[in-house]
């Protein structure tokens, strides 16, 4: 960083030249990274380790974005899998991912990602990050590399802070609360960005390469409405992370092509007095529940809850984008004393005993929550949740007789998860689709270069993470647990490497 007086002289000199953007400060660097999440930090660190000067722009007062909170990464044929004798191969994983997405995706991007995934995990180990390997649910293979806590940092924060510290040591400069506003672009070449700090000072950053990694548009209702089929009033973001698709927009403004904009949906318990990601939410994910829509009809095999995105797809297409998860006192006792059959990732792991569940339910009922209801009979419950009594009663009685017979003639739920709901009081939790992040966006090639409408790379412009398109069909690839986080690291590293080759 230049001293104040040198900067003033430099700035005045530049202002006297033909610069339409009246800059208060001008910075020259090799690489500017727009967005300080796991993608941006991987790109920044890779470039810096290769000798480039790097500036990272972040609009929030903290780094990480979603990556500070997400839990683990997809990889195949890693050292962790070798130690666990887990034999899934790169070829098998690749084929499965293509099939999951009905081949409506970029095969080359996926092939490279899957092939490099183990090496990316090893690179993260070198930066001081450790993992433990788990299987997220019976539906998915043992591919989820959970980030181990580090010092007092938890989950993704442990990874972000490790990369952050390494990047700082390698000379990367971080400008927090300094969003990029516009790409500097002419003759099909990107040569920097215009940004603004939190005091309104305009900053021009001239660079050989720009990496766009702003984490998508999940917090922009406007963009969700314009770019996707989802209703932004009902499909709500998990966290207020201020991700408003700035990176995608900036690139679109200079002619970038986009593809596949959507949301990474999951099921949330929604209603007043419900603390997110705790007992009530966990309870709503249990495969032994009965789900009904607001017509009182059962509509799917509730064990789909093992696959959070498919569960949200099913609930999401019901009228009002909502459903009720119904269970009884026996279910509450089971969850409290035996532990849950399906966890919420590692935030509430499988087999956790929900000892606080009754209190949580009571607290929600005490504030007359619109999302938590109870009754002693199915007729009374129908009135509580506002669905037609006769329809609910029929669906409930049918479900209980399937459960007693051990065969779900309606939707073929595995008999393991069929328990008749006829012990004590009944409870209903409102479930609706939230999303962890947007998916889809800028088209890129395997070097992470952003492509224009003619499918040609825009010189100097790179993108990665959940900002890009061509990775997913209509649903996030749940089968490859941690796909997005793994791709963030992969795309960041690859962008960094591509840039080093270009600028040398």
């Amino acid at each position, binding site marked *: 960083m230049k001293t104040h007086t040198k900067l003033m002289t430099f700035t005045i000199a530049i202002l006297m030249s033909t610069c339409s953007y009246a800059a208060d400060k001008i910075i020259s660097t090799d690489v500017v990274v727009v967005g300080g999440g796991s993608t941006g930090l991987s790109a920044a660190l890779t470039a810096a380790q290769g000798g480039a000067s790097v500036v990272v722009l972040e609009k929030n007062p903290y780094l990480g974005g979603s990556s500070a909170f997400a839990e683990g990464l997809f990889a195949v044929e890693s050292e962790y899998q070798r130690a666990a004798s887990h034999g899934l191969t790169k070829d098998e994983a690749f084929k499965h991912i293509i099939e999951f997405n009905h081949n409506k995706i970029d095969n080359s991007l996926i092939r490279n990602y899957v092939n490099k995934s183990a090496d990316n995990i090893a690179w993260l180990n070198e930066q001081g990050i450790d993992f433990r390997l788990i299987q997220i649910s019976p539906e998915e293979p043992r591919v989820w590399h959970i980030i181990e806590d580090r010092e007092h940092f938890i989950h993704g*924060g442990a990874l972000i802070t490790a990369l952050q510290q390494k990047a700082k040591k390698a000379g990367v400069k971080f400008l927090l609360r300094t969003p990029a506003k516009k790409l500097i672009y002419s003759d099909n070449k990107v040569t920097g960005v215009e940004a603004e700090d939190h005091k309104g*000072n305009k900053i021009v950053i001239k660079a050989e390469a720009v990496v766009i990694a702003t984490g998508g548009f999940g917090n922009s209702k406007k963009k969700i409405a314009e770019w996707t089929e989802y209703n932004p009033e009902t499909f709500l973001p998990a966290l207020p992370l201020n991700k408003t698709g700035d990176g995608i927009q900036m690139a679109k403004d200079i002619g970038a092509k986009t593809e596949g904009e959507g949301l990474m949906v999951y099921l949330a318990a929604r209603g007043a007095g419900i603390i997110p990601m705790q007992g009530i939410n966990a309870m709503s994910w249990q495969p032994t529940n009965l789900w009904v829509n607001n017509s009182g009809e059962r509509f799917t095999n509730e064990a789909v809850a093992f696959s959070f995105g498919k569960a949200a797809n099913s609930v999401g297409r019901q009228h009002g984008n909502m459903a009720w998860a119904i269970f009884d006192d026996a279910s509450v006792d089971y969850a409290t004393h035996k532990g849950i059959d399906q966890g919420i990732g590692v935030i509430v792991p499988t087999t956790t005993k929900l000892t606080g569940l009754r209190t949580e339910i009571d607290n929600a009922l005490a504030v007359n929550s619109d999302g938590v209801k109870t009754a002693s009979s199915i007729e009374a419950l129908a009135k509580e949740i506002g669905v037609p009594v006769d329809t609910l009663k029929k669906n409930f009685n049918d479900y209980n007789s399937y459960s007693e017979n051990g065969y779900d003639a309606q939707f073929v739920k595995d008999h393991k998860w069929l328990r008749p709901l006829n012990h004590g009081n009944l409870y209903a939790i409102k479930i609706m689709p939230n999303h962890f992040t947007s998916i889809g966006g800028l088209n890129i090639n395997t070097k992470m270069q952003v492509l224009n409408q003619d499918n040609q790379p825009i010189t100097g412009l790179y993108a990665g993470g959940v900002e890009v398109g061509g990775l997913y069909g209509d649903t996030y690839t749940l089968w490859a647990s941690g796909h997005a986080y793994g791709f963030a690291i992969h795309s960041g590293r690859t962008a960094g490497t591509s840039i080093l080759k270009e600028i040398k």
Partner: protein
Amino acid sequence: MKKNKPSFKQLLAVGLVVLTSTLIPISPSYAYDLGKTHKDQSIECTSCHEDNKKAIIPNERCLSCHESYTEISKQTSDMHLNPHMSPHFLDVDCTSCHQGHKVIKNFCQDCHGPVARH
């Protein structure tokens, strides 16, 4: 990065504060308007702003007196969530919460709800 060493005047002011704090307890509201509370301790505007009030104030300047997040976290360890020992973030901009001439704004509360001081 130019390190902002406290002037003799500042050190004296701090010394006086330490002495008087044993006699007159400092109100916990001191964190709620930084400009005023620093001024009350005879710390010059230039200690934070140097010679450009329009420029941002980097963490290094705060930490030249306040040492480190770890040190500060000891003073807020009574809070049920310690904002200076976040399990999520490292090196948050000090002034994102401690806005110089405004009431403090703790953004932990955006997700966690009210964070209480005991």
